[in-house]
């Protein structure tokens, strides 16, 4: 995070601007220093170092910027390609004029500096110097001659009288200072024209080299600069003694030149020195100016490149933003808004882009809102349809299944999701027994009926189902939106209830209308037999006896039958107690096993573990088991190895627990024509049956809020399935129930 911030700062405009301004300032100062400005001359080296360092830093910053740009280019960052191209173009445009100006300036500078120096002037300066030297040499030679004369005069002068002689000689020859030294350089005597106000009381002493020269017998004569602007002639000569063996002495003669000569001499000296210096500095001066000019050119170039970098970036920013924005829109991000940084054409473009994305975004939001609304309505519709007691399915104009609810799946006993968007006829391929259903729908659609109603019967293994289909055309524009909605009602239970109610009425009437005359009939028959039996002949008596006995037996049989109907028609009176179904089953089966009728029957019990006790009327359930077992025994009478299987298990249907009881035999199974009416009264496949056994079983199961259905197994034999709720009355026939039912049917178990 910090490094990226540092990088951003380093590549920002501020460091470059500050550095550029600083470098320009130091360059100006350096330029002033090159021109011998006293103000900046002392810090010239520092300015030079600052400039070179600054230029290096500036180059570093530019390199960093270009490096970043190249990285963006390699990473294919939007706009980097154009920025780089613009930068190269601007840099080239800058480089060419700067190089041209630099080359010409350098040439002009060199020629300008060279033009300062003229051979004639140089010669004149040399001549002037030689002239001056010649003039002073003449004076010097004259003074040498005078000095030698004075030395001769001093040869006979003792050290003691030397001062007087020196003073005399100095005044005689207008000498500034006369000093007599021993050969070791010690002062013997000195005479000077300067008074006590002189800066130094001691006379000027010749140097060791001069003394050494004199000791060798030579003469020293030269022009000496005194201070900054004075000249004097110095002549040193040996003074030999007239006395043999006396040591040599040394005379130094100093003569200040007249002010006019001094002034002229210094003028020539300084002019010559300055010119020589300038001549010598020509090379370094060119170097200095070239350096300054190079720095100026380099700085101008670098500042221009920096400007080009930021100019290109600034110019490209809205284009890059636009490109990024367009890419975002292409990827579906319509909320993209770009910053409007200027009021020029780019600004207008960006503003238009923003308006466009805003409008698209709004339209998109409206669309999403609309979709959500539609989805909500669809969910609402599905919820409503899902909770209808009727099955609903809709078809499009091509008879393809569009929507359906769960109830229609329960009614048809199959899933419909897999054939969505397929023609409804595909249902027949999945389940052939639904062909009646499909044919009815297709027939009405082909007839192009707007509304239709039809009752159909479906033969399923679990029995015959009666369905009422109501179709309605859905209007639409052309084929789009057009279709049919079909409402399916399973009225099997309704019809069954109606049938049961009818049979109840029949049973009640039978009980009422038939039972009453039976007793008088029986009594009359017995009275006839009692009165006439002793009065008839043997043959007649036998006839009467057989007839009256038949009447009495048949009346008795009728009474039994009427009582059975009466029981069936009687309102339910359930006295429920908490009992374990398994225990009840075991009791009933034990009783049956002791019966001689079923000794040959192989009974298998598969009772589930941990079965809870549920609220049951033990007498009524015992009757259910009795009826079912008797039916099984009757059904397997002609079977070589009769088998009976009773099983119980717990099943969970929609969070509700049920105890399932299955009674299976290996008899011939239920006749197919009776499958739809098995639980109706007076429906029986047995010769002597009353037809009330299964009807009573169903009645009792209904009284316990259970469900019952019968089916034929694929392996042969009949199966009765009863489900009783564990926690009181529940509807056992639900979606899972249907699926379970379907699975069982498919497995044929």
């Amino acid at each position: 995070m910090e490094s990226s911030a540092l990088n951003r700062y380093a590549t920002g405009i501020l460091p470059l601007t500050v550095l550029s301004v600083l470098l320009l300032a130091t360059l100006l100062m350096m330029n002033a220093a090159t021109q011998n400005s006293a103000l900046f001359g002392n810090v010239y080296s520092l300015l030079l170092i600052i400039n070179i360092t600054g230029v290096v830093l500036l180059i570093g910053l530019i390199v960093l910027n270009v490096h970043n740009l190249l990285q963006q280019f390699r990473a294919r960052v939007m706009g980097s390609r154009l920025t780089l191209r613009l930068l190269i173009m601007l840099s080239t445009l800058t480089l060419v004029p700067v190089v041209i100006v630099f080359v010409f300036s350098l040439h002009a500078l060199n020629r300008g500096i060279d033009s300062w120096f003229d051979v004639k002037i140089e010669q004149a300066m040399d001549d002037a110097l030689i002239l001056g030297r010649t003039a002073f040499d003449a004076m010097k030679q004259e003074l040498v001659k005078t000095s030698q004369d004075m030395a001769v005069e001093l040869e006979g002068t003792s050290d003691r009288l030397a001062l007087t002689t020196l003073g005399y000689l100095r005044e005689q020859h207008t000498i500034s200072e006369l000093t007599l030294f021993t050969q070791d350089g010690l002062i013997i005597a000195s005479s000077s024209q300067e008074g006590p106000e002189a800066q130094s009381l001691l006379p000027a002493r010749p140097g060791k080299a001069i003394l050494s020269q004199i000791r060798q017998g030579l003469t020293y004569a030269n022009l000496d600069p005194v201070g900054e602007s004075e000249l004097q002639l110095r002549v040193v000569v040996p003074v030999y003694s007239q006395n043999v063996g006396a040591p040599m002495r040394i005379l130094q003669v100093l003569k200040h030149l007249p002010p006019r000569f001094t002034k002229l001499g210094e003028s020539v000296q300084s002019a010559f020195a300055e010119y020589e210096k300038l001549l010598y500095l020509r090379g370094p001066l060119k170097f200095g100016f070239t350096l300054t000019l190079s720095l100026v050119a380099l700085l101008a170039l670098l500042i221009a490149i920096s400007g080009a970098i930021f100019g290109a970036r600034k110019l490209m920013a809205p284009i890059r933003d636009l490109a990024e924005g367009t890419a975002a829109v292409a990827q579906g991000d319509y909320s993209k808004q770009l910053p409007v940084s200027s009021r020029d054409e780019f600004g207008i473009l960006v503003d238009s882009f923003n308006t466009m994305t805003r409008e698209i975004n709004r339209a998109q939001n409206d669309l999403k809102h609309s979709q959500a609304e539609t989805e909500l309505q669809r969910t609402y519709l599905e919820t409503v349809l899902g909770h209808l007691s009727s099955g609903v399915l809709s078809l499009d104009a091509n008879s393809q299944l569009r929507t359906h609810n769960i109830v229609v799946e329960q009614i048809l006993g199959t899933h419909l999701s897999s054939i969505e968007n397929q023609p409804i006829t595909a249902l027949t391929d999945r389940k052939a027994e639904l062909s009646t259903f499909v044919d009815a729908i297709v027939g009405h659609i082909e007839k192009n009926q707007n509304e239709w109603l039809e009752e159909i019967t479906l033969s399923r293994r679990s029995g015959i189902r009666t369905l009422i289909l109501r179709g309605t055309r859905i209007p639409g524009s052309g084929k789009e939106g057009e279709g049919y909605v079909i409402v399916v009602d399973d009225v099997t239970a309704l019809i069954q209830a109606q049938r049961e109610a009818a049979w109840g009425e029949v049973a009640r009437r039978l009980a009422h209308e038939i039972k009453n005359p039976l007793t008088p009939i029986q009594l009359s028959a017995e009275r006839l037999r009692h009165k006439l039996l002793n009065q008839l002949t043997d043959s007649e008596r036998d006839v009467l006896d057989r007839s009256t006995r038949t009447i009495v037996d048949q009346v008795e049989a009728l009474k039994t039958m009427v009582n059975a109907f009466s029981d069936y028609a009687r309102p339910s009176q359930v006295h429920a107690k908490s009992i374990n179904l398994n225990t009840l089953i075991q009791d009933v089966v034990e009783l049956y096993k002791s019966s001689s009728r079923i000794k040959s029957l192989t009974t298998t019990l598969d009772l589930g573990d941990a079965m809870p006790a549920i609220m049951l009327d033990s007498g009524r359930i015992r009757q259910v088991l009795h009826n079912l077992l008797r039916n099984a025994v009757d059904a397997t009478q002609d079977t070589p190895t009769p088998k009976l299987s009773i099983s119980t298990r717990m099943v969970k249907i929609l969070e509700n627990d049920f105890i399932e009881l299955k009674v299976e035999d290996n008899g011939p199974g239920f006749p197919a024509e009776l499958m739809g009416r098995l639980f109706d009264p007076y429906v029986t496949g047995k010769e002597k049956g009353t037809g009330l056994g299964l009807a009573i079983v169903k009645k009792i199961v209904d009284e316990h809020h259970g469900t019952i259905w019968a089916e034929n197994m694929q392996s042969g034999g009949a199966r009765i399935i009863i489900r009783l709720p564990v926690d009181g009355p529940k509807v056992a026939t639900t979606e899972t129930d249907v699926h379970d039912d379907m699975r069982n049917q498919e497995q044929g178990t």
Partner: protein
Amino acid sequence: MDSIMRCSKKVSALYTVLFVISLLPLTATAEFSVTQLTPVIKDQSLLLNGELDLGLSEKTEEALSKGIPLEVIIELQLYRKRPFIWDQLVQEWEFRHKIRYHALSGQYLVKGHAKEPDKTESFTSLQQALAYMGTLEDLELSLKQELPKSEAEFNVLLRASLAIEPLPVALRPVAYTSPSWHLNSGWTTWKVQR
């Protein structure tokens, strides 16, 4: 972060190159040398006798002959030796000898000798002038603080160098970049006698 590291490495390399370039003149062979020095501490003053060999390069001689004044700096430092830790700087001195060529008289003028700072001496030859500048004869330097009379040992460090900053502005870039102008004896250490 990587880009910064890479960039900083590049900048470091650049600085190293610049530093090496800046060192090049300094490592050139110095033609100044201290031949001999005898420092003696006597009565709260430092008495020096010695000789410096101030040999000018061809370029500097040429510049001098063309009227460019040269300035030789003689730096002196008196250190008190201390065991285990660094030596203690007691006092330091700096003398600036200015030499210039007087074309009219053909003499070399030397000003600012340590012994007589305000006096200008003239010499007919450059060798004489340089010998004069390099001669330290009975140079007595007063000490600001009283030195302990214990067994403490002292060292004198001496260095002679050609000053570049006093040169004309135009000549400085050349002087800074040319080894011919970098005349420096380097620091030499001399034990002080008491």
